[in-house]
């Protein structure tokens, strides 16, 4: 931006210099002509002023010297001589040289400037005045919070100069907490009154951190015509402990509205000072009111400061947050509808608004969800008690350590995590950690440890329960699973698959039911609870060294990113986190697979579940269907749908109690057009299909 102005200045200065040359030659002919002298002066003056403004400080400084001389000529203090004209012409050439140099980006010859200046000073000695070079105003000092008492009493004619006192008061208001009381110095009789005059003055109490100079600056244009008094009356930088403020009488004495003697006299009587003073006609009521305003102002500022210090965090009832999150959820839904409408209408303006709303909504959503985030630490400390009680009951010596107590999770997630975690910890204590003697015999310390840790990992939180107990007995698990008919006797299972058997319904390795874990609640219930949170659970263990259970859960439950798909006229959602890719499925592909639900994706066979069939949706599928391939616990499984619509922000609504047990559906959401889409429970769908296959 500055460049175009510099260019404009360079062009203008060149013009002015040409004009200057002409004027100087004319001046030689008519050295007394004030018009010509004025022209020369103005040319110099403009070059100087604009030069400094556009960053040509050297030109400004140099021109200032010439201008000064011509100011003297203008005032009749100096005669135009041949020598002066010669010097000025030389100066004009020098300015031209400096401009040319500036345009090229060079530096001009300085010695020439010095010679000319020396010559000019000889003609018109004007002391050792410094050239006027622009000095930026010093930064206003950063003062601490303080309260000032300001009296602003303008002359009656203030408005004739175009000053609106209200603007000045507003300017003060913007500086901090401000109490303004208008006072009158008495109106003249009607015939003597100037209807355009100002007969009011103001008492202002201002609490600001901008310092007294900033307040003076407000009045900079009017300080000569107005009475302006600024006094600091309280400094809030230090303590706010003392909560009383000056007595009314003290304030009035300080303001000079009443004498100390008058106050003492009034105080001799037994009424409120203000009322007394007014009733006795010592002081007009308005002045007392103004002082009372000051008293109140200070009190309020102190209170506010105290409450601010207390208000770094606030407690809010959980229901209010739930309401907020629900509303944000509704907003996300409406926003989706707006975006969809904008796309359909193909209206640029509407699209722009929709995009803006989308951005704001997502920010609002994030911060609303953030408010519900709580550190998991409070839950951790509850478990410590549990460990202590259980271990003494079982005659074990167990210590619990924790890590990542500050890790934050959505409040509702923490609540729902409580039971599964209690169960897992109980398991560790009951089945995992051995009795002290057994531990010593195994060469371990008597003390067993349960370590509970939480850590953020992307949009999930990982919670680990690790014990240094006996570890899982693979053979015992296998034997039990065979006995229960969960696996065939000859089944070959990986270690991971074997460990995962403990999550099978009805599975328990405990020889007998203890009072602790034998409550008919198995690991299958834990697993289901975690999955209800859209999480996953994983076990690893080594014999004799201990077991580690890792629970992965999403940060929040309220809103997820999902993929919207269509089957017939129905809409479904798949959690985007689980979706890997989408591929096409043609009729020929289906025919080639001979009825097996397998798709060939880049030479890998991927099993798929035809959802249309699974949900019994009538009608014909399209020629080309889509397979949404998900990845759950390392296994790729496809879901066949009619169409993939795209990514979607999904506000999860739980299904009513009547639909609670429907398998394969974890919730519902409302789409932009108002219709309902069901959220698919990928894990359950896969499990139920697998179960049927066995």
């Amino acid at each position, binding site marked *: *931006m500055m460049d*175009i*102005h510099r260019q*404009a*200045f360079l*062009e*203008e*200065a060149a013009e002015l210099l040409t004009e200057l040359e002409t004027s100087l030659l004319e001046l030689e002919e008519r050295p007394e002509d004030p018009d010509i002298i*004025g*022209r020369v*002066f*103005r040319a110099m*003056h*403009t070059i*100087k*002023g*604009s030069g*400094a*403004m*556009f960053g040509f400080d050297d030109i*400004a400084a140099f021109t*200032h010297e010439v*201008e*000064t001389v011509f*100011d003297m000529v203008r005032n009749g203090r100096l005669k135009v001589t041949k020598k002066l004209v010669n010097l000025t012409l030389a100066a004009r050439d020098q300015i031209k040289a400096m401009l040319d140099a500036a345009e090229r980006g060079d530096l001009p010859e300085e010695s020439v400037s010095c010679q000319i200046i020396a010559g000019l000073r000889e003609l018109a000695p004007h002391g050792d005045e410094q050239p*006027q070079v*622009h000095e*930026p*105003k010093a930064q206003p000092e950063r003062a601490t919070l303080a309260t000032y008492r300001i009296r602003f009493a303008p002359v009656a004619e203030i*408005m*004739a*100069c*175009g*000053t*609106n006192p*209200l*603007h*000045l008061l*507003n*300017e003060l208001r913007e500086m901090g907490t401000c109490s303004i009381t208008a006072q009158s110095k008495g109106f003249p009789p009607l015939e003597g009154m100037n209807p*355009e005059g100002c007969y009011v003055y103001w008492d202002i109490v201002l609490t600001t951190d901008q310092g007294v100079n900033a307040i003076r600056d*407000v009045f*900079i*244009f009017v300080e*000569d015509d107005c009475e302006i008094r600024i006094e600091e009356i309280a400094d809030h930088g230090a303590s706010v402990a003392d909560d009383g403020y000056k007595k009314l009488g003290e304030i009035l004495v300080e303001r000079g509205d009443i004498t100390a003697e008058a106050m003492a006299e009034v105080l001799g009587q037994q009424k409120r000072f203000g009322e007394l003073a007014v009733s006795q006609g010592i002081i007009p009521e308005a002045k007392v009111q103004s002082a009372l305003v000051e008293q109140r102002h200070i009190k309020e500022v102190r209170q506010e400061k105290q409450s601010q210090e207390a208000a770094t965090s606030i407690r809010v009832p959980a229901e209010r947050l739930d309401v907020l999150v629900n509303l944000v959820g509704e907003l996300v839904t409406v926003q989706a509808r707006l975006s969809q409408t904008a796309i359909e209408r193909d209206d640029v303006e509407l699209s722009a608004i929709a995009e803006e709303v989308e951005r704001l909504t997502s920010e609002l959503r994030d911060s609303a969800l953030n408010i519900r985030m709580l550190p998991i630490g409070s839950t951790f400390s509850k478990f410590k008690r549990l460990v202590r009680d259980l271990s003494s009951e079982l005659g074990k010596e167990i210590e619990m350590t924790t890590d990542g107590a500050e890790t934050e999770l959505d409040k509702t997630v923490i609540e729902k995590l409580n039971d599964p975690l209690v169960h897992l910890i109980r398991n560790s204590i009951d089945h995992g950690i051995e009795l002290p003697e057994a531990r010593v015999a195994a060469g371990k310390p008597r003390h067993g440890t349960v370590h509970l840790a939480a850590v953020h990992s992307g949009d999930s939180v990982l919670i680990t329960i690790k014990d240094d107990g006996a570890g899982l007995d693979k053979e015992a698990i296998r034997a039990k699973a065979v006995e229960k008919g969960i696996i065939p006797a000859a089944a070959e299972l990986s270690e991971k698959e074997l460990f995962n058997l403990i999550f099978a319904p009805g599975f328990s390795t405990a020889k007998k039911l203890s009072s602790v874990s034998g409550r008919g609640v198995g690991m299958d219930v834990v697993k289901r609870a975690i999955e209800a949170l859209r999480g996953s659970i994983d076990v690893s263990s080594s014999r004799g060294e201990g077991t580690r259970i890792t629970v992965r859960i999403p940060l929040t439950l309220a809103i997820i990113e999902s993929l919207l798909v269509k089957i017939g006229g129905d809409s479904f959602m798949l959690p985007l986190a689980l979706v890997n890719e989408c591929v096409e499925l043609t009729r020929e592909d289906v025919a080639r697979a001979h009825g097996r639900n397998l798709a060939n994706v880049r030479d890998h066979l991927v099993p798929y579940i035809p959802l249309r069939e699974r949900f019994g949706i009538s009608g014909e599928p399209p020629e080309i269907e889509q397979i949404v391939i998900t990845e759950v616990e390392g296994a790729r499984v496809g879901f066949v749908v009619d169409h993939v619509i795209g990514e979607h922000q999904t506000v999860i609504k739980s299904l009513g109690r009547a639909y609670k047990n429907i398998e394969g559906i974890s919730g519902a959401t409302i789409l932009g057009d108002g219709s309902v889409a069901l959220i698919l429970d990928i894990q359950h769908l896969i499990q139920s299909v697998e179960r049927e296959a066995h």
Partner: protein
Amino acid sequence: MAKVIMTADDSASVRQMVTFTLKQGGYEVVEAVDGKDALQKLSSTKVDMLITDLNMPNLDGIGLIKGARALPSCKFIPIVMLTTESQDSRKQEGKAAGATGWIVKPFKPEQLMAVVKKVLG
């Protein structure tokens, strides 16, 4: 409606800068090349504020301020004069003529805007 500010200055580069700055601030700008031009335009155009240079041909800033204050439409508008520091006596003259305030040249765009905001509210 955007407020209208007149800038009276014989320097085209200063006018350009003032105009540019004010327009950026959302104001409408009327330019005048000297005091005479300004006064002429003021009689037919309603402005909310006047920013004037002091040294101008034909009619200087002081004359313009006096002339403007005599116009009923300009009686109470803020008038800010552009001065240089060497013109302290002229500043008093300007105030006596009815100027509201002044801006010392050279100034930066933000200084100009601060003054405009101050007097125009």
